[in-house]
């Protein structure tokens, strides 16, 4: 089957040759959000930090594995990825800073603040990864006038 045949193009667009970045990113995001919800449900009172740390560690692990798996994709359009991801990072760092601010305003400190801050960092890194990946995987333009789906480089 030729590289430009509809079946190959359909496989590419479905991300068959890419790691499951979106699914893993959503899993990492879900884990860190559960950690945040757990902390928020207890604050400003004392919070047993074990579950939050475990969730944060799991989220960070999934995120790191996801980023590593993506970094090993040959020919991935990194220029496009970083072109989008850096602005998304700026936006979600700002959002995370606003959330951090409201907790600081209410005198959250010590270990809960550290776990919360690390959770926000993982959150702020995950979203640019998801947005950058979704944009970059479709970076390859379709052949002129073909109307065929574009896909990530194999």
């Amino acid at each position: 089957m030729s590289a430009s045949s509809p079946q190959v193009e359909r496989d590419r667009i479905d991300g068959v040759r890419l790691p499951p970045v979106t699914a893993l990113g959503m899993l990492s995001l879900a884990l860190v959000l559960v950690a945040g919800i757990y902390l928020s449900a207890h604050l400003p009172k004392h919070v047993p930090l074990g579950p939050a740390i475990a969730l944060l560690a799991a989220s960070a692990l999934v995120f790191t594995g996801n980023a590593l798996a993506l970094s090993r994709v040959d020919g991935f359009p990194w220029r496009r990825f970083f072109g989008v991801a850096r602005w998304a990072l700026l936006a979600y760092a700002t959002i995370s800073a606003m959330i951090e601010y409201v907790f600081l305003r209410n005198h959250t400190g010590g270990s809960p603040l550290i776990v919360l801050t690390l959770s926000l960092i993982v959150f702020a890194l995950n979203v640019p990864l998801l947005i950058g990946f979704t944009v970059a995987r479709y970076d390859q333009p379709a052949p002129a006038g073909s109307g065929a789906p574009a896909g990530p480089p194999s």
Partner: protein
Amino acid sequence: MAQAVVSTPGGTIGDGPAAVIERPDFQIVPRAGLPIVAVVLGLLVAGVAVDKLWPLIFLHVVGGAAWTIIDLFLGFVLGPIMGQLSIPARVEFTTRLMPKMVLIMPTVVTVTLVAGWQLSTFLGTNLTGNPLHGWVVASFIVVGVMAVIALGLLEPANIAVLTELKKPQPNPAVIERLMKRFIYTAGATGLMQIATLVIMTKLSAG
């Protein structure tokens, strides 16, 4: 306004001869809106710093109302309409609506969450002993589910559609695929907003 073209196979993706659709020029992130976002975030910082009831209620209710209504309207009214539009109409509508959503949604969500936390601290509803604490935690869970859907699927699809449409030769199949994702996830977050309405009305009723 500058125009560009999108080649589509006769209006239906997958068969027929290619047709050409005009699309308006646009910015993925409308720069004119950035000062407005800065002002809104400045008001949020001031509202939290002042820590008075009225500014916090104002920020939380305005942000929350905008978030809920936009999600419901997009999920149940605009989404299905977009799905039925012709491809040229959908492309034109998308290039006018979605860049605004790139700025509006993160801003209203941030205002709602930050002001909401400060408001619940002010009212004491985030204390574990408060009788409404369970409802507050329920709202965190609903927001968490919506955040995973919106940040994992909806927002990336939105940006990717706009990026594709900015290309000299956008690929209609990619746009179609991402638009479907956008419309379905908008419907899912719209459904979750019904839960938000139940929780928030319960919290305000006491």
